[in-house]
């Protein structure tokens, strides 16, 4: 097993002003599953882009040997020809094309320029069988779940006779069951001799599949841990990633809970397109001053839908319900109204719904409360810079200046910009939807600290999260939702993953 399939030596990649990778070394043995761990912004994705030819061979320093031959890729298609296939975190499938068409997209099964549909679908079916997906190859991709789409991506990779499969956070958008399938598949492919590199934040998954783990921190290789040497432990990985031992994953809190700030009563929401479907049924919940309240639920439970509907009807149609703040009914029918009443909602998808990625940090921070900066009819740009610099410091946003473009920041820092934006709107109630999704361990701790600080300042905080340990770690009280119903309200003292899961899967009579 000790034959290297891939050797990357002395890889250094610089962006204007930033050294993204510095003398990085990566050795992958043939037939192993090699995990790459590191905080967001550590350089994992950059390294994979260097490997797969997204960054052409003359744009970085260092050498890459694949099967003992040097690689000078100038595009992805070059690396694919050699059998290196990368599957990105955000899937690159065309939603309206069929599974088979997607698998052979760019590699059509054609005869004399005409697509051979029989062969396309037959071959696709064989590939689907290999990845354990029982779907008809002519089904449009938009009709299958994200978990299955991930399998289609892998089938597509197999169609290219992949030798080295790179998966960038393959389970980030998957539920437990689908994640399990995917990991089993990776192990299954390993049995067929396919080497995999997997980038993941989820340490339990890494322990399940990885034969070796390379840790990258601040653009440098820290170490490579090997399973057969008994080095792969959670403590060791975390220490390598953050450069210190994390004694606690969650900050200490001493909650001082006061009066009720927000109460949602009897809230119902219909699906935006399918009006016969009720997504949230008569939900009621409240949150108090200084309190962190969690919303737990499985996929389709209606947590985001509930939050967005309350926040300016940004999802579906609200058919019943009232919102009270300090006991007074308030109107939250537009986002502007909701903000005026001191409600803030930080979305689960910060890139698509949270940030203007082509704009700089300061303009993103001021966006939700621009009017606070208006002096004599004009936006006071100096004040804006002062405000943004204040948040850069207090939130520890790592960027050269507040004039840096947010699209260039790492996920954790982007999330801090989103939180700064909402803090500047000076809300009484913050609804944070998956505040740590796609964020690494170190930055997660920072986000939790910010949440704790907000609560200590007397804000009422609602956290929507799919990670139960996270809710258990930071909340004072947790509501569970199941199929649009609030099925439980659990004080933290009585909460455990088992009780929460029990309520989250409870069927409402």
């Amino acid at each position, binding site marked *: 097993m000790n034959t290297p399939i891939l050797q990357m030596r002395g890889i250094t990649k610089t962006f204007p002003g930033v050294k993204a990778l510095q003398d990085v070394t990566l050795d992958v043995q043939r037939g192993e599953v090699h995990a790459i761990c590191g905080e967001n912004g550590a350089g994992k994705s950059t390294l994979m882009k260097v490997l797969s030819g997204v960054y052409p061979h003359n744009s970085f320093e260092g050498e890459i040997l694949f099967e003992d031959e040097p690689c000078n890729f100038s595009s992805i298609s070059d690396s694919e020809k050699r059998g290196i296939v990368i599957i990105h975190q955000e899937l690159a499938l065309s939603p309206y094309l069929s599974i088979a068409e997607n698998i052979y997209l760019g590699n059509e099964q054609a005869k004399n320029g005409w697509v051979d549909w029989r062969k396309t679908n037959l071959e696709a079916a064989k590939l689907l069988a290999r990845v354990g997906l029982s779907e008809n190859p002519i089904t449009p991709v938009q009709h299958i779940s994200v978990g299955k789409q991930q399998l289609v991506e892998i089938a597509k990779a197999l169609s290219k006779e992949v030798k080295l499969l790179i998966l960038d956070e393959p389970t980030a958008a998957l539920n437990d069951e689908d994640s399990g399938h995917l990991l089993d598949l990776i192990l299954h492919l390993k049995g067929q001799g396919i080497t995999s590199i997997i980038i993941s934040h989820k340490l339990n998954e890494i322990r399940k599949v990885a034969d070796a783990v390379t840790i990258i921190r601040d653009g440098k290789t820290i170490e490579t841990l090997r399973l057969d040497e008994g080095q792969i432990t959670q403590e060791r990985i975390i220490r390598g990633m953050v450069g210190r031992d994390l004694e606690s994953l969650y900050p200490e809190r001493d909650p001082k809970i006061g009066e009720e700030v927000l109460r949602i009563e009897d809230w119902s929401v219909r699906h935006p397109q399918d009006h016969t479907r009720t997504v949230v049924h008569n939900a009621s919940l409240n949150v108090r001053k200084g309190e962190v309240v969690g919303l737990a639920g499985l996929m389709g439970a209606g947590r985001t839908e509930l939050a967005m509907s309350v926040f300016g009807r940004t999802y579906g149609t609200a058919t019943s319900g009232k919102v009270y703040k300090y006991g007074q009914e308030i109107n939250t029918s537009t986002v502007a109204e909701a903000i005026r009443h001191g409600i803030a909602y930080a979305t689960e998808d910060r890139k698509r719904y949270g940030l203007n990625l082509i704009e700089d940090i300061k303009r993103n921070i001021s966006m*939700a409360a621009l009017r606070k900066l208006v002096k004599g009819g004009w936006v006071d740009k100096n004040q804006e810079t002062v405000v943004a610099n204040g948040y850069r410091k207090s939130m520890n946003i790592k960027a050269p200046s507040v004039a840096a473009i947010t699209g260039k920041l790492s996920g954790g820092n982007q999330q801090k910009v989103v939180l700064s934006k909402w803090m500047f709107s000076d809300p009484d109630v913050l609804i944070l939807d998956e505040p740590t999704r796609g964020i690494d361990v170190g930055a997660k701790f920072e986000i939790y600290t910010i949440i704790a600080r907000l609560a200590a300042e007397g804000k009422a905080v609602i956290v929507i999260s*799919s990670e139960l340990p996270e809710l258990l770690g930071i909340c004072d009280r947790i509501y569970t939702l199941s199929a649009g119903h609030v099925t439980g309200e659990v004080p933290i003292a009585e909460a455990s993953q088992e009780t929460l899961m029990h309520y989250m899967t409870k069927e409402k009579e």
Partner: protein
Amino acid sequence: MSALRESLGFLTSRLRQVGIFVALILIVLLFQGLTGGILLEPQNVSNLVVQNSYILILAIGMVMVIIAGHIDLSVGSIAGFIGAVAGVMIVHWGWAWWLAIPACLLVGALVGAWQGYWIAYVGIPAFIVTLAGMLIFRGLTLITLKNQQITPFPAELRALGGGFLPDISGGTSVLEWLTVILGVGATVALLIQALKERRIRKKFDLENEPMAWFATKTTFIALLMLIITFLLASYRGTPIVLIVLAVLVIVYTALMNNSVFGRHTYAIGGNLHAAELSGVKTKAVTFRLFVNMGVLAALAGLVFTARLNSAQPAGGTGFELDSIAAAFIGGAAVQGGIGTVAGAMIGGLIMGVLNNGMSILGLGTDYQQLIKGLVLLLAVGFDIFNKNRSGGGGGSTLGKRFKLRTTPPASTESKPPAGNEAPAQERPVPVSAAKPE
């Protein structure tokens, strides 16, 4: 040495802004040579300003619409229509200019409101609505004019198109002193403003241009302004429309940079969803942008009509394409969120100098169109090439190129690819994924 390197590094990072400016100067020098010096003769400079003023006025509104992620194909027809309305009001009905001008601008606002309603509140893409508008308002122009031109207009209105500021020396001097005072005053104001801006950026610890580059650029622009002042002053002075244009550029630059409305325009072009979820009233902003475009198109129509001294059935034809080209040559991004009024003005001037220079050379419209098309293609192509390079990616697909255009380095991560378009709410969600022990 390090100062030089710093300057060079800065220049490459701003290649687009610097490039477009240098391109304008090169084109001016080229035609100055080709036309044997006619291009920069005082009379021709004056003509150049007046001839292009209406395109530049349109380009201001157009770049705003483009920043918001829309487009407006109807401005030429609206300009023609307003010319016709002005003809009816002033020539047929005998309205005074001070009544007819505001009335025409109001009609322009209503036209803009009509289109803005369909775009913002009904949700029809601007391309379709304004394509329809292009036909509708051309039709209305023909109906209003009954297919005949209306002429002549009174001198007060004609001054808007071809008039000059009065000569305060009473015709005794070779130079128009009012123009000299205005030009020198504007140059001094610009220098003070530039220095102030630089000091503030330093104070707030923001990235500043290297001193060498700043000094070169500012001196250069100041010199350029003084030269233009001199040229205008030695002909008939400052065209009135130049004053109008200067006021518009200053006001709209401030509006786009420092007003809530301007910021919201950039925000909805940059990321519509994020803007919406930040409490930006996206529909209202879009609506107002088109009302504004309508007013500016009306003003352009008035200036054009005044210059020709006639409202014509075909008036304004093709203006939309020139103003769109000006905005894109000036660095606006097709998918919105990026662009400046100043850039659009330079873009417009490039088109204007090309038009004027080629006309002097006696090239027919056939070659003029060919060359203008190529210039537009090259300008935007250069833009994309440049951003690709600074992104460090050798992206092979068209989609990647477009993404690189919006966010340089981290761009490949910035937008989810089209394959993942399922609504966020319907995505399966991992449950209790990482259990820390």
